[in-house]
């Protein structure tokens, strides 16, 4: 099986603080990988390194067999990295449909007419069809989260990065979103998902990675990881 993404000894510091410490892992094609860890463990920084918002101090990042360690963010989008943000960041002055259209046209380097149909079907998949002409700035939280997902999908990703997309949602909303993500995963998209809502995460991912103080302290089968004493102590902060 080929790897969509490979990180090799990636480190990143902000001043004296090492937020990513010699991180190495690979994600095979089609896998859904979950990332958990306490606040400040460096999870979002890891995403920023993968998308190219931050450049690593040392180490290398390979995307679909190509070294992208120094490539700018927009090149990586065109290669197939789609991302949703922890705090939804839609283009508020654009309608929901325009948000998708822009992401799809520029993310895939195509003309708008070529991507219109795809955008409509993504709106359907993410249950946003009725909000297509609403300004993104006036959406509810669930719809903003859906738009994050939809917009990431619109860039035509081979690798989808989800950053706490279930956070802040009610139980019912969360289940609906999980169903959408499962459906996307079933289409064969590789997913890396950072999440605090563990039951949502473990119902989708096949592999779990635990981050603490920028280091990987465990990676493997979700059940085994959740059962390990070390993870329970560090991540859940309790002795069970």
């Amino acid at each position, binding site marked *: 099986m080929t790897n969509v993404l490979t990180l090799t000894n990636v480190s990143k510091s902000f001043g004296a603080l090492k937020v990513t410490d010699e991180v190495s892992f690979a994600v095979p094609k089609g896998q859904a990988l979950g990332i958990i860890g306490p606040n400040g463990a460096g999870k979002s920084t890891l995403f920023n390194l993968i998308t190219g918002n931050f450049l690593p101090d040392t180490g290398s990042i390979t995307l679909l067999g190509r070294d992208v360690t120094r490539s700018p963010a927009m090149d990586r*989008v065109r290669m197939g990295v789609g*991302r949703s943000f922890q705090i939804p*960041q839609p283009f*508020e*002055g*654009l309608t929901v449909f*325009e948000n998708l259209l822009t992401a799809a*046209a*520029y*993310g895939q380097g195509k003309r708008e007419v070529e991507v219109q149909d795809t955008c409509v079907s993504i709106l359907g998949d993410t249950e946003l069809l009725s909000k297509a002409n609403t300004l993104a700035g006036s959406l509810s939280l669930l719809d903003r989260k859906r738009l994050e997902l939809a917009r990431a999908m619109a860039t035509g990703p081979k690798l989808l990065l989800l950053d706490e997309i279930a956070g802040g949602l009610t139980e019912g909303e969360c289940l609906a979103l999980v169903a959408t993500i499962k459906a996307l995963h079933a289409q064969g998209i590789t997913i890396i998902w950072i999440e605090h809502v563990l039951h949502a995460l473990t119902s989708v991912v096949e592999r779990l990675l635990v981050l603490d103080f920028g280091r990987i302290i465990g990676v493997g089968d979700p059940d085994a990881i959740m059962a390990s004493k070390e993870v329970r102590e560090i991540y859940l902060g309790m002795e069970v």
Partner: protein
Amino acid sequence: MIWIDVLVQGILLGGLYALFAAGLSLVFGIMRLVNLAHGDLIVFAAFAILLITGTLGLNPFLAALLAAPLMFAAGWTLQRFVLNRVLGKDILPPLLVTFGLSVALQNGMLEIFSADSQRLSVGRLESASIDLGVVTVGTLPLLTFASAVGVIFVLNRIFYTTALGRAFRAVSDDPTTASLMGLNPKSIFAIATGLAMVIVTLAALYLGMRSNFDPSIGPARLLYAFQAVIIGGLGSLWGTLAGGAIIGVAQTFGAQINPEWQILAGHIAFLVVLLIRPRGLFPRAVD
């Protein structure tokens, strides 16, 4: 009757101010960049048109048509290689750079074109007028106003119905997120400044045909442009047209009372609007 005439003349003059302001408004709206050299760029474009009319013997309108792509290239280059480097969280560096550019442009033009007053000559059109029954309006002022309406209409069409316009709005919302959607904010900024320079060329054409210009008049044009943008409300292009008209009307009414009052009346109108509506008349709903 004379007051209706004054009102109409003022509104038409506002078209010229709106043309000065549209490019400024475009650039500010997309990248929060205040271009202090905007007025001098208008004068620069006017000299460029003058140079083309002189050397090729063309009518100013055709000369402007030739100058427009050159100005687009100049704006694109300026943004790509200079202004993009100073854009950031701190608003001071771009202000300093464009202020420096303003000084350099004024002195450069003084060196090349001298301090002599110039004019773009269009023969009979300069004094032609149309009788509308109640008032008689100059053809050139009417053309200016129509051009301002046209420019704003086209800009709005671009903004709301094209891929480029959506990209403008997306990078204006959030350049970082935009780059994760595959947009390149820096090259989109360069296109925006190029487009602003095309509008500047049009503004320069009417400025040069309607009044004398010399290398020193840029800053005052910048001031009118600013006032029009702020009266209209930041981010609203039709508001900018209204802002231009308000300054124009204030100026013509001021001049009617006493010719010395023309410029002052415009500034007073600006201050009054600031007092009553600090965010302008038509501020953008989502800010």
